């Protein structure tokens, strides 16, 4: 680092140049390789340009081969992601409000939600399974017979899958929203109270607008994560219909030679949906009041 004490030469007024480029390259090159190479190869494979054996032939066969199952999988994935994101956003927002209230209750919620964020999703899935299955802790506590207990794990409504995502990701939303709120919320909230705003009005006109950008960003991250995550739906879901990642991995591991391009096609479809959701989130972010 050459921070020579020459007048007018400080790093804060740094200009784009070779130094900065060299500092970001070690991070940017692997990222471009993994994302560009990975998505590029998936697109090429799905179009028949990277066959394991046989001639290279441009075709949409991989997409049309699963024409029956693919729309159902898209619907299931979107449904799970929407339900999980909605619950996580509402619970996470409530938890953030409790955290920034700054009382001991808020501090406990902050510590517990920080601990929840560190739990691997696979462990969360195993735990939710032990809680909600027909021989789980919840039917034992409620004294409901295994036959009378609704099929939450592996059932038609994906309840256990949504519960796991909502549980883990609400902790994530809470930490992100509380982190952006903590710096400025006290003065705004106090000022509004001094000017005569009641509890509901402060929530509606102070808290919600202050939280909205962080809430939109974290919800978009949760949605995209849920859409592309494999292990929870695989462990707690049912075998048909399958969410997109489960379908892709089943095709990927299949011994049929035509299945690899079909797995790549499912991967490309999932990527396209994720990018569309991120683009929508950016549009929503621009409409929030606090966006510069």
């Amino acid at each position, binding site marked *: *680092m050459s*921070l*020579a004490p020459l007048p007018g030469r400080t*790093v*804060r007024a*740094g*200009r784009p*140049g070779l130094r*900065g*480029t060299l*500092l*970001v390259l070690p991070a*940017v090159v*692997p990222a471009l*390789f993994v*994302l560009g190479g*990975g*998505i590029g*190869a*998936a*697109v090429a*494979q799905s179009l028949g340009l*990277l066959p394991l054996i046989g001639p290279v032939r441009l075709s949409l066969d991989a997409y049309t081969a699963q024409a029956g199952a693919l729309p159902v999988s898209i619907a299931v994935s979107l449904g799970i992601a929407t339900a999980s994101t909605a619950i996580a956003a509402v*619970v996470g927002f409530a938890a953030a409000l*409790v955290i920034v209230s700054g*009382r001991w*209750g808020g501090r406990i919620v902050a510590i*517990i*939600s920080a*601990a929840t964020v560190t*739990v691997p*999703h*696979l*462990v*969360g899935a195993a*735990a939710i399974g*032990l809680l909600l299955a027909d021989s*789980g*802790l919840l039917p*034992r506590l409620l*004294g409901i*017979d295994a036959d009378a207990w609704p099929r939450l794990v592996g059932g038609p409504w994906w309840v256990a899958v949504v519960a*796991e995502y909502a549980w883990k990701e*609400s902790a994530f939303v809470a930490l992100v929203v509380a982190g952006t709120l903590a710096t400025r919320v*006290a003065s705004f909230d*106090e000022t509004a109270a*001094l000017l005569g705003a009641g*509890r509901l009005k402060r929530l509606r006109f102070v808290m919600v607008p202050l939280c909205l950008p962080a809430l939109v960003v974290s919800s*978009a*991250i949760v949605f995209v994560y849920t859409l*592309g995550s494999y*292990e929870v739906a695989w*462990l707690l879901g049912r075998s048909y219909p399958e969410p997109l*990642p489960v379908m*892709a*991995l089943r095709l*990927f591991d299949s011994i049929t030679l035509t299945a690899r391009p079909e797995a*790549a096609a499912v*991967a490309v479809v999932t*990527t396209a949906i994720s990018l569309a959701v991120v683009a929508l989130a950016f549009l929503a972010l621009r409409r929030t009041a606090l966006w510069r």
Partner: protein
Amino acid sequence: MSIQARSLTADPQRADVGRLRLPGDPGSRLTDSRGAGRVGRVLSAALLAAWFVVPLVPLALWAFADRWSFPAVLPSVWGTDGLESAIAQGAVPAFWRSLALGLVVAAIATPLGAAAARALTMGMVPWPRAVGLVLLAPIALPPFAAVMGLNVVLLRAYVPPLAGLVLVLVVIALPYTTFAMRVAYAAHDIGFEEEARTLGASPWTVLWRVHIPLVAPALARAAFLAFLVGWSDYIVTVIIGGGTVVSLPLVIASSAAGIGNDSAVAILSLTAILPPLALLLLLGLAGRRGAASRRSRPDPDPIDPRTARSRLHEPGAAR
């Protein structure tokens, strides 16, 4: 509504957000809840705490349950069958493998993210928005999609599975480390480093004695997030590792997919939860100690650049 005198705080220092307020403290904020509102607040805090804790309760109960037949609310026979079964399934080597994977990912992704964040924050990068987007992009894309395509590329380039796995996990960790370090560098005062250079310190000395100590808490946070990526990954290890790298999540998955080994699953799950929790605790304690030592330092250390700088900024001090 009427404004009561006791609700106005005269001393601005007392308006701290995070400070514990005790009954009898002078002044109480207008936003403090009283009566029914207070009950509601305590109740909602308790409900939220339960929401976060309850899913983990079965793990704790199952871990040392040798027999727990259905209608019983508590295990009927306690024991260590689950522990023995978990060890027989290879929990111990898998634990060390996962720990090594997490540490390697953290050791690589943290400096890469820090360097990129510094260059981005200081405005030293051409096309900063594009570079920032590339480094955040891994969070917006489904990892299994990129990894399925990349698998072909890595196989054709003869990259060993372990190297490919570390590469992908580092890229997945980069958004977290870059973001954590960008936040830190945005609040970082480059003046400390300039002054150390002015006083004759070499660039290396500045890096090790001034720059890194100042951003150390943020580096620890970034490294923790990167560790979590390597520690908890399942799908990338399955696809890229191709079964050659059996990490702890893989053992948990194969155990959980079977039937009848609930206590082994619980033991394995607790094994996967505890190391990150211990790190989080260390991080919290270190942060608290750092904050305490900054607050209660009676005699400013003249070599400490923080106090040195604040002295330079005192009125009358020659710069």
